[in-house]
């Protein structure tokens, strides 16, 4: 336990030292920043974007923002969290610029109830069927395509909350919407994804 704690403190000290150097425009510090953090940032970008070219473009744009904004970094979040946020914002900007046509609507899959409030539309697809389908490698690629074809607002919250595992608060800040909207859009997005997966 002590060892874990001391490792964590050491990492924090190293990060603080790196930030100090970045703030005085130390070239070696910028080199370390790019080399130490780019893989993780690339992974975040790639989870949002369609291909490696877009992810690489995102990484470049993200670092341009980082180089410009580093002097505004206030240390109220960790450097990793701050970089993560900028990466997500850049990925979202690229996605918006691409303006992919998204035509799927939750209304197409809405639930219906009888006079007793009982469900009258339901799928026979059990969770087990989904599991069996998911075991196939090609299905994983199709699932990613499905997520990307969701309406942008649903796709974004699923990416941030369920896949990136950010908090509702952080998601709301990045997307510049209320926490209530995050919850609503996440729930609707999940329902839509569930319906698509069960077709």
């Amino acid at each position, binding site marked *: 336990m002590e060892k874990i704690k001391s490792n964590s403190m050491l990492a924090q000290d190293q990060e603080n030292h790196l930030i100090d150097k970045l703030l005085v425009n130390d070239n070696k510090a910028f080199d370390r920043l790019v080399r130490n953090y780019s*893989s993780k940032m690339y992974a975040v970008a*790639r989870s949002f974007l369609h291909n490696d070219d877009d992810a690489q473009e995102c990484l470049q744009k993200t670092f341009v923002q980082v180089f410009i904004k580093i002097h505004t970094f206030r240390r109220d979040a960790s450097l990793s969290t701050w970089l993560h946020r900028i990466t997500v914002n850049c990925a979202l900007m690229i996605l918006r610029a691409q303006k992919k046509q998204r035509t799927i609507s939750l209304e197409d899959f809405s639930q219906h109830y009888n006079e*007793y*409030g009982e*469900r009258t539309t339901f*799928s026979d697809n059990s969770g087990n069927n989904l599991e069996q389908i998911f075991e196939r490698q090609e*299905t994983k690629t199709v699932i990613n395509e499905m997520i990307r074809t969701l309406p942008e607002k649903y796709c974004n919250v699923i990416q941030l909350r369920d896949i990136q595992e950010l908090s509702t608060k952080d998601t709301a800040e990045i997307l510049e919407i209320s926490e209530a909207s995050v919850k609503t859009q996440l729930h609707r997005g999940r329902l839509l994804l*569930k319906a698509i997966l069960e077709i």
Partner: protein
Amino acid sequence: MLMIKRLMTQYVPGMLTCKDVDSFLYDFHEGQLSIAENLKFKLHLSMCRECKTYVQGYKNAIRISKEGVKTAEPIEKVPEELVQIILKSRIKK
């Protein structure tokens, strides 16, 4: 079972309908229901095959989307060429 469910939702106070289950689903998954609501939710699921399947499908959709993204695209090391382009962009700035 359908009749039992219908009678219970009609005559037992506080019993959830399928429609109620839908409105509680998000909070149930996020662990944000009160103890009483959580019990009512689970009681409904124990009586309702359709809702049980529906809730399971919701959970699976979340898990599958998460695992799909994580496993379909293994992350490789960022190419050195790209690192150099990024570092040069700072110097140009």
